């Protein structure tokens, strides 16, 4: 059974539809890239999958025993206030909150997980720093480490590389590909970087006036994909 199935989904705000009749499914271990123009509804789709936003019609079915607290999420923009005092360590650790349930404190294993994820993303030297005093790219990595703490199964990333330098971008793509290949975490990523999408993803979902969903190799044949310069 698929890990995530969207059936005839219509998305929109206050009854105004921005995207209709969307159907696709994601198997465990897939790497799905969602592409499309600005304003086509990618973020809205992700929020709907996460249950932050109600669909107008249609339904989302989770399978393989996927629970809400096994999903990791990297938002496109975090509405963190400018003056919020929070250290990097506190934020990364808060990614483990979903698995705590009613338990009030973090276990030693969860603290280790947070430390490991900070290490993976090169955040260990920044652990005690204040989040709001970091650069945009560093903040992005903190939020990614938090997302990694939240999941063993499904990772939803909304433009994870925006604002990162080319070196960190390449490392991040590699890291996500590793998580997908080695740890078997399903990845759903929104990106404007089509060449990277074609390189790393197993499936592509293109949304907009015309919708495409299929394996990566089918995408160039769909006519929606225009290589640069063409």
């Amino acid at each position, binding site marked *: 059974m698929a890990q995530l199935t969207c059936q005839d989904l219509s998305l929109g705000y206050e009854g105004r539809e921005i995207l209709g009749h969307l159907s696709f499914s994601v198997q465990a271990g897939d790497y799905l890239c969602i592409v499309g123009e600005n304003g086509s509804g990618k973020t809205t789709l992700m929020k709907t999958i996460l249950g932050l936003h109600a669909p107008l019609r249609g339904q989302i079915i989770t399978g393989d025993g996927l629970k809400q607290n096994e999903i990791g999420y990297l938002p496109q923009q975090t509405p963190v206030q400018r003056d919020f*005092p929070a250290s990097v360590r506190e934020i990364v*650790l808060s990614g483990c909150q979903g*698995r705590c349930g009613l338990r009030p404190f973090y276990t030693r294993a969860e603290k280790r997980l947070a430390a490991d994820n900070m290490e993976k993303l090169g955040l260990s030297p920044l652990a005690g720093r204040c989040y709001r005093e970091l650069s945009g790219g560093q903040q992005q990595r903190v939020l990614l480490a938090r997302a990694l703490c939240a999941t063993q199964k499904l990772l939803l990333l909304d433009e994870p590389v925006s604002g990162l330098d080319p070196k960190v971008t390449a490392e991040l793509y590699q890291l996500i590909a590793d998580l997908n290949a080695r740890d078997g975490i399903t990845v759903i990523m929104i990106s404007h970087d089509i060449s990277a999408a074609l390189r790393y993803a197993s499936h592509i979902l293109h949304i907009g006036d015309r919708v495409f969903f299929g394996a990566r190799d089918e995408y160039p044949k769909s006519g929606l994909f225009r290589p640069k310069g063409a």
Partner: protein
Amino acid sequence: MFAKLLLYLQYPFVQYALIVGTLIALCSSLLGVTLVLKRFSFIGDGLSHVAFGAMAAASVLRLSDSMALVLPVTVLCAVLLLRAGQNTRIQGDASIAILSVGALAIGYLLMHLYPVSSNVSGDVCSTLFGSTSILTLTRGEVWACVILSVLSIAAFALFYHKIFAVTFDESFARATGTDARLYNLVIAVMIAVMIVLAMNLVGSLLISALVIFPALSAMRLFRSFRAVTICSACLSVCCTLCGMLTAVAASTPVGATIVAVDMAAFALFCAAGALRDA
């Protein structure tokens, strides 16, 4: 003046007042950080006016134990306001404003129409500004305050990580399976309890100061949630004790004195923060 202070400290009602004051200060400052960061300062203010209205109703009804009415009413309003705030921002703001001025007006009207004593403006003033109510608590009220504040502090300690998660990024918390609604409810109830308690200490108009100043002061100097929480708790307890002792020794109104000390500390912390950044 020092001898006078020592003399006063022998009296049990002064000792009770100090204990209760410390606990209330602790409660309010712990929640204050969340209140400020969640942009709920306004809710705190609105709720304190609701508590004033309920207090007026309780005294008109000549209830022997006013807290029995004030607490449930305030908790209920806190829950309702939170609901309203979740739907849309603007409506939430407006409903707080309506509730807050409405409760203030009705409370004053009630006290005027059915005066309990001959000195109506004195009664109103003591409910609004606390004046000496912390020194005139009955034994039962002291126990109620102690139990409620200890419960609040324990709840805060137990829910600390969850409160951080829903305060820092509520949508992430919700998306990854934290029951944000439940914890928002917990926060709202704790705020309501804290406000009813703090009314005894500083009166309903000055509660916001008690809640906001320590948190804002701590945020000038510290950069992590834990440090800010601890610092604001310590600061609030110190300022409250200072303020109460000064008030007792110099016979000034307790609430206003505490707030004045809080303000002085805030100025000090601002200066320290500016010095450090320079």
